[in-house]
């Protein structure tokens, strides 16, 4: 079977066996089984010591499972997990998720067990995700095998980011936290130790997946580096690819005598390579979520000239500083507004409005003034991106401003990024903006950084299109 087709069965299985399922709500097998109960798929718990769980009869062993299981989720410990994979293979089960750790990451003995799994996968043409995998979560397919807490419902709504992470906990913690402010996830895949399936398999899969419009990877090692880069470049022609590469590799220092070798020392080579292949690099989980969120919600930026619209003078000044900072990712410029634009804004707001960029319409502004000023900035040919500093505390500003901004984003090619704060309600405001289709951030620095991701993306796209 074609690899993509076979992965479809892993990610959207009809019949699932849970090896080590349990009535106990404290056991991994118990948590995962209960999580799957909401998935409307046929479930087959396997445990010789138990009889029934939530209306499902336990199979005492793997041999007594039906013949057409699509996926086995193995929740038992390392050594037993390998044995059960062997037995499942006799039942011709094509896909596996192995949750347990205790493999390559703990030393020589574990490494031997992991090598056994690699060989089993290869010899029998089955897919093994893990071991040490936190599993998969695809909201649209209504499948979730993650046994730890991982965020609220905002993850569930029409998300388009595929997150493929080597470390499950980095992935779930990042996304769980991002979901407080709204984050659209298409898929979560915990790669774990990559005994068989690795980042390249899922890169291929989600490149072609119609519901995915942005791919994000957390990786510690890229064994097949050149292959990954080459395929990622093909993907980047169509969809943004973001990589958080942790763990800096050092070229054996003793062997380096050249200047070049000493300068390559940290991870400059990987940074250069990612750029060369059109991949956007990030350095921590917050940046990962910020980048994938904006890249998934907005199509890029026609240029790098930014206009700031603010109701709070201080933040406008601060935002200007961030825009003018040197940054290797992408250079931003403060837009120079036309006289016509300034006139329109003055007419719509106050005669005293400061109309040089940043445009400060003050805390006396209301929704309509924001709306008309945004229109003026969108219509200005000298503006490519708008950062809107929106506050909901002033009396003239209501929640309607959210829909006003969302509506303008839908009708314009120019991206609008929002920076907002609302005291203890900040996260909720940002989440409401997200639901309306607006990418918003709770700090000036993060909003400006999001603008850089869009400019960087457009430059990558243009370069790759030229090469094609």
């Amino acid at each position, binding site marked *: 079977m074609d690899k993509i087709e076979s992965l479809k069965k892993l990610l959207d299985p009809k019949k699932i066996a849970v090896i080590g399922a349990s009535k106990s709500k404290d056991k991994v097998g118990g948590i995962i089984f209960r999580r799957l109960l909401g998935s409307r798929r046929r479930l087959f718990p396997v445990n010789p010591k138990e009889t029934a769980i939530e209306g499902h009869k336990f199979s005492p062993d793997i041999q007594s499972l039906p013949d057409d299981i699509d996926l086995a989720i193995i929740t038992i410990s390392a050594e037993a997990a390998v044995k059960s994979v062997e037995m499942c293979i006799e039942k011709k089960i094509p896909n596996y998720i192995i949750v347990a750790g205790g493999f390559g990451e703990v030393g020589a003995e574990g490494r031997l067990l992991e090598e056994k799994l690699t060989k089993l996968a290869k010899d029998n043409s089955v897919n093994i995700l893990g071991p040490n995998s936190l599993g998969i979560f695809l909201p649209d397919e209504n499948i979730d095998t993650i046994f730890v807490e991982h965020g609220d419902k905002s993850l569930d709504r029409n998300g388009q980011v595929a997150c493929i992470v080597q470390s499950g906990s980095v992935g779930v913690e990042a996304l769980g936290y991002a979901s407080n402010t709204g984050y659209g996830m298409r898929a979560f895949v915990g790669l774990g130790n990559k005994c068989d399936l690795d980042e390249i398999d899922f890169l291929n899969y989600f490149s072609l997946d119609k519901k995915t419009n942005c791919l994000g990877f957390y990786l510690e090692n890229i064994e097949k580096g050149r292959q990954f880069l080459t395929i990622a470049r093909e993907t980047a022609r169509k969809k943004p690819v973001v990589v958080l590469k942790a763990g800096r590799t050092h070229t054996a220092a003793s*062997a380096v005598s050249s200047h070049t*070798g000493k300068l390559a020392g940290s991870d400059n080579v990987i940074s250069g390579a990612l750029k060369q292949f059109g991949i956007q690099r990030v350095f921590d989980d917050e940046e990962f979520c910020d980048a994938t969120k904006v890249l998934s919600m907005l199509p890029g930026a026609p240029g790098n000239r930014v206009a700031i619209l603010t109701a709070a003078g201080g933040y406008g000044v601060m935002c200007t500083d961030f825009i003018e900072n040197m940054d290797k990712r992408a250079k931003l410029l403060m837009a120079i507004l036309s006289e016509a634009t300034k006139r329109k804004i003055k007419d719509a707001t106050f005669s005293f409005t400061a109309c040089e960029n940043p445009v400060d319409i003050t805390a006396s502004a209301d929704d309509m003034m924001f709306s008309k000023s945004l229109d003026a900035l969108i219509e200005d040919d000298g503006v490519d991106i708008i950062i809107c500093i929106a506050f909901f505390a002033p009396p003239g500003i209501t929640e309607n401003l959210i829909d006003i901004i969302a509506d303008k984003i839908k009708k314009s090619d120019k991206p609008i990024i929002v920076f907002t704060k609302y005291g203890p309600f900040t996260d909720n405001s940002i989440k409401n903006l997200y639901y309306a289709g607006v990418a918003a951030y709770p700090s000036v620095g993060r909003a400006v950084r999001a603008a850089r991701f869009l400019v960087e993306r457009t430059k990558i796209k243009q370069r790759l299109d030229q090469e094609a």
Partner: protein
Amino acid sequence: MEKKIEQWFESIGDKKHPDEFDAKYLVKLYSIKVPCARRLGPEDIFDVEGIDPPYVLKVCSSNILHKTEFQGVVLNNDNESVQANFKELQKRFPNENILVENQSSYMGPEFIIGIIKDPALGHAVMVGAGGVLTELYKDTAFRLAPCSVTEAMDMIDELVLSPVFENFRGMTLDKKKLAITISQVARLAHDLGDRLSQLDINPIVFSEGEWIALDVKIVFE
């Protein structure tokens, strides 16, 4: 090209650290300009016929990687001083070859172009602010080899030094030609294959309308 490289590899004395003269011959095969030079052995008669003054004298040995630190370089020799300085250098390094080169005058800053073999990704090419302080500046950009001219242009744009190509203080440095050179160096690495461990062209400078490699160092596996 493959045949020329193999011939060159056969011809060189030290297969791990080729000396500067041999290293420069290799980059010349890739259309990278090097100064007009002669390599003189310990027994050779002094001869600068065909090389224009001023001259630079350098000890040329696989054993001495950092010539300057061992006082193995004498700059600014004219026709009068060159022979005496040559003998002086010979006395300091009695068993080594000496390189006599035309000393190029140049415009603008020194650059470095290099190659390193990354254990996971293979050969990478680097461009950066060059000279003896290159490791302090750390103003560099990397790409994997092979590397197109367009990609090399992006590398140059990443450098803090990049504004020197925008008519900075009246300098007219050719950015495209530097990018072509970077791309050629990446090709050289690709052609040499796995045996190439490291390469430094440092400095490379802009002289009379061309980029010229003033020093080249190669380390093989």
